[in-house]
């Protein structure tokens, strides 16, 4: 089983990120589950939000949050000051941070996990004209992990957002996927052990 935890702030589409990953995994023939944790009274813009996604080859029985994720998606670097983002992250785990700055500039100590950064907000502003970075983050995450095929992800975005919004989000996701896939072609992706 693969466990992914998403950290963001209310309004950044973190809950939707986990949902889209679950939809794409199911589309690709896996079993999956996604759900949110809206702490501190919940549904407020700007408040720290967590969302969870499990993917497995068999039906998933667990009905609890993810304490020891394999993967972390961090949509907003300001959360590093208020939330223990890395809590429980497995050894050899994978972290994707939405930032143009690399792990060292972000002050992340080299530890027993891999940290990548990707400027998803910039991609979102170019493509969607709005700072909603979740679909760009998903594109980069898919490219860097190889866990998702683009067709399943496009299906997920289209199902969740029919029409124009869906198409522009697919464009953001594809652009991020391309940039992250070959960092030489312009994406600022930094890997660090």
């Amino acid at each position, binding site marked *: 089983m693969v466990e992914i935890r998403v950290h963001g702030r209310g309004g950044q589409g973190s*809950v939707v990120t*986990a*949902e889209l990953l*679950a*939809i794409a995994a*199911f589309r690709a023939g896996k*079993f*999956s*589950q*996604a*759900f*949110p*944790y*809206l702490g501190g*009274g*919940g*549904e407020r813009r700007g408040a720290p939000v967590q969302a969870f996604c499990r993917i497995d080859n068999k*039906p*998933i*029985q*667990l*009905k*609890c*949050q993810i*304490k020891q994720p394999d993967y972390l998606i961090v949509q907003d670097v300001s959360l590093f000051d208020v939330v223990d983002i890395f809590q429980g992250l497995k050894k050899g785990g994978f972290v994707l941070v939405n930032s143009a700055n690399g792990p060292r500039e972000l002050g992340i100590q080299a530890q027993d996990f891999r940290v990548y950064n990707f400027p998803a907000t910039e991609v979102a502003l170019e493509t969607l004209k709005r700072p909603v970075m979740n679909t760009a983050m998903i594109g980069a995450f898919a490219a860097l992990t190889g866990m998702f095929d683009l067709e399943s992800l496009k299906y997920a975005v289209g199902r969740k957002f029919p029409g124009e919004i869906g198409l522009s989000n697919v464009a953001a996701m594809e652009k991020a996927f391309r940039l992250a896939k070959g960092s030489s072609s312009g994406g600022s992706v930094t890997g660090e052990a």
Partner: protein
Amino acid sequence: MNPEAIKSKEIMQGSAAIAETIKAIAPGVIAVYPITPQTHILEHLARLVADGQLKSKYITVESEFSAASVIFGAASAGVRSYTASASQGLLLMTEVIFNMAGTRLPAVITAVNRSLSPPINIQVDHQDTMTLRDSGIIQIYVESIQEAVDTHIQIFKIAEDREVLLPAMVCMDGWILSHAYEPVTLWRDEAVQEFLPPFDPVFQVDPKNPLTYGALTDDDKITEFKYMVHDALIRSKEKIKKVAGEFRDAFGNYYGDVIEKTYTEDAELILIAMGSMAGTIKAALEKLRAQGKRVGLIKIRSFRPFPDQELRTALAGAKAAVVLDRSFSCSSGGILGGEIKACLYGQGGPQVINYALGIGGREIYPETVLEIVNQSERLVESGKIPPETIFYNLNRELL
């Protein structure tokens, strides 16, 4: 699964799956008032009504008291009716729920379990629905979104049965079921309607044929009226079992009848739980069984009617029952724990250990289950099982 009954197999949010199922059930009246974490169900139903896919009378009201009153009124007119609520909203419905049960009018409420205020908290526990336990309403708790879907179809049939005629409630945990995405099979409207015939009321209010519901009754008859609600709820147990079997025959899914047993046959220690935590417990049981530990689980589906005889039989061979309560009655302790102790008293069954946990969304992980099993084994060995409820991981520094 019966392939001919399947409409779709898709990953979807619990609330959307419930709304789509209510569409197939097609109540005549749906009363709506929003409250987190239930609102997505009624939003989705609003869309179905606006799109012309659902012909129900969709009535927006100004409070949960009115929402319950609207379905009460609709049921008295012989109309299948439905609403959903959570937390304080369910408490506000309480007065009407006693009235519906007392006047023997069936209507269905989806209860999306959420903690009660104060302090305000939007996460899951079972205090809201457990507080309604004495009303006469049927309560079935579910573990997964699929079980929630299937139980909604079953519960209308149970509630509307002429030998039952009681309001009924499907209790599904907030967030972890209402807001979660899981793979769900939805059933074709025709298959649902074939399983669930139209509501055929015994009485209905009619200006041409006046009758009174809930007339004043003195002490010469009131005990008998109240007893009949008690008796109808007890008799609904056989109906729940029968309908669960019919559902298995028609659709292929089965979750036990009033209880569901996992690894109980040879178990020395049997955990007893309700709702979504049963899934996490099942995952933990796999680890415990791999270690050779004889631990099992009874998931209570039907809390009302209470499965007393079924529990006595299922627990007969166990050394200890460990009851995990997601609610408690102040000064008395875990509600389920207390009821299970009462049903076992003097019957020579196992000892009972009672934990209160998972209050206001405090997470129940597989590790939580493993630790509780370890603690319980030590308590059984020491012979010092406390008679009172143990509040799991209570942080005494905050008291």
